[in-house]
């Protein structure tokens, strides 16, 4: 993929007609370094704002500064990234955590080394949306979802887990709801609009569009109800063994970008409202370019990241236990065995 080159080119163009912030960004950015001094590495990402820190680290030259020449490979579904890491097609990956991810990890193919984004109160990423009919019949808050028909993408997806933890909070299990797996969001929306299900779990843009179309009501946000660790940065155990310095450099550059992302997008004022941090517009432009989305759409769905890349370990353990109780992940898997947090010092 040429995303990397592409971003750099646009970056250079933009500086031509002067953005002060971007000019500053370029000052610390790609300096001409002799090619042979750079270690090559590749990272698998999705073109989503949850991969924002990687885009920032790439565009602002943090990888080069650490002596890494990093290639970005863009994938279209969360499932493909850990597979690509397991097969050795890419060295690192950042995506959401699914049952399939843990099954690959259980076979010793991947190891989590740092956090990606997480669901946090005040950061609307995934909504519980009720159809108008179900809403009129009394489906008014997330705890009412017990006993309802809910469309999800697939068994083992992040949506499946979100229903699981919602149940843990309100005292029901996934057996108490009818999950309807429809593979992807367009089919979920079709079933929702056709009144085939009572509710769906939807990404924020889709949820807001459904409300704007008058098709349903947002009952709440998963981040407010059940904060959890959405995604992680991971690599192959073999990479950690044989190329430890590369992993260290990669994580350092990643953390620099994470801290910058956190300061720009995740800081709240005393009243709890989000404030625009330093470099807000420049970073938003980088993410909007990389995800090929309009900046205002990106801004509405920017997830929370921990500035030090710390994982919610308790939630990762809970995820593994949940998938094991659902019979979808090998019972023998010890969640701690798939973590190597020495790189972030957690």
């Amino acid at each position, binding site marked *: 993929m040429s995303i990397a080159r592409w971003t750099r080119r646009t970056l250079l163009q933009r500086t031509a007609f002067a953005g002060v912030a971007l000019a500053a960004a370029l000052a610390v950015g790609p300096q001409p370094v002799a090619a042979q001094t750079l270690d090559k590495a590749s990272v698998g990402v999705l073109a989503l704002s949850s991969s924002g820190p990687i885009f920032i680290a790439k565009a602002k030259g943090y990888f080069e500064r650490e002596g890494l020449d990093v290639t970005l490979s863009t994938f279209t579904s969360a*499932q493909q990234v*850990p*597979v690509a890491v*397991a*097969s050795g097609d890419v060295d690192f990956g950042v995506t959401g955590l*699914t*049952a*399939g*991810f843990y*099954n*690959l990890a259980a*076979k010793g*193919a991947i190891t989590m080394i740092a956090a990606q984004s997480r669901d946090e109160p005040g950061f609307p990423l995934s909504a519980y949306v009720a159809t108008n009919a179900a809403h009129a019949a009394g489906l008014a808050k997330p705890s009412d979802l017990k006993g309802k028909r809910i*469309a999800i993408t*697939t*068994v*083992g*997806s992040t949506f499946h887990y979100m229903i699981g933890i919602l149940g843990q909070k309100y005292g029901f299990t996934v057996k108490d709801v009818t999950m*309807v*797996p*429809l*593979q992807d969001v*367009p*089919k979920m*929306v*079709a*079933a929702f*609009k*056709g009144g*085939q*299900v009572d509710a769906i779990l939807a990404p924020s843009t889709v949820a807001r569009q459904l409300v704007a179309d008058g098709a349903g009501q947002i009952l709440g946000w998963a981040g407010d109800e059940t904060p959890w660790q959405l995604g992680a940065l991971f690599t192959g155990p073999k990479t950690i063994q044989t190329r430890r310095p590369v992993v260290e450099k990669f994580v350092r550059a990643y953390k620099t970008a994470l801290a910058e992302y956190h300061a720009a997008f995740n800081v709240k004022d005393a009243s709890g409202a989000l404030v625009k941090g330093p470099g807000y517009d420049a970073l938003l432009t980088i993410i909007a370019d990389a995800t090929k989305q309009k900046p205002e759409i990106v801004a509405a769905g920017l997830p929370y990241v921990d500035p030090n890349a710390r994982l919610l370990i308790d939630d990762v353990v809970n995820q593994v236990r949940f998938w094991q109780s659902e019979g*979808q*992940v090998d019972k023998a898997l010890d969640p701690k065995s798939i973590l190597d947090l020495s790189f972030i010092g957690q």
Partner: protein
Amino acid sequence: MPDPINTPTSTQSTLQAVRFRGGGFHPRRHPWAALAAFALLIALWEGTSRVGLASPLFLPPPSAVGRALAGMIADGSLWLNLKASLLRIGVGWSLGTLGGLTVGLLMGVASVARAVGVPLVSAFFPIPKIALLPLFILWFGIGEASKFATIGFGVFFPTVIAVYSAIDSVPRNLIRMAQSFGLPWGAILRNILLPGALPGILAGFRITASIALILVVAAEMIGAEYGIGAFVLMAGNLMQTDTLLAGVMVMSALGLTIGALLSLLERRLLVWR
């Protein structure tokens, strides 16, 4: 010496026996060849895993797939999934085939129907049914109807094409002969066109049966709780590669069974050949 020509031991050395040069180009049955090929393939596959050429994650050995399959049989999920899929394939394929036979027959005998039908079939056949799934959900819901429709539509168009081209390939001189003997139109259809087109139509069935098997996976993308397609999709999503291959095995076994049934049907119906 009653027949000196065909007797090789003939004392007349000027006459040589002619070797029989007919035969060949004749489909014969070799039931063991297929079995041997399968056995060899499986042995090779198990071998690469045992030797360590392929990691069990990327290519689970047949023994692991066998264990997954045995697990499916033991907990009864195999039968549950198979039953759901067989119903969908059966109903969907029958609906699509009935429709396809009717339309294909019309297009085969009536030139107006063909003039209308050929461009329509060309326009609709290449549409991937998977792309239409969201529409099918809106039209038919997420119950069984949308699954029948997905398979039915997939089967319909190839059947139409198979039927009208099979009718085209019936030798015209047979029809002309029947006409010159004064056979009525209906009798020509029944005694010449349909039997003549039958080999082509049955070959079409072979293709549409496979299409129905392929489409059952697509159909079961729509909120199916059970079904061999839903099972394969789920195993893929969970990265359980051995279970995935066990599901795929069941599907190919299903394909083999349907193929064998069609061969039986061909032998019964085409006995006049």
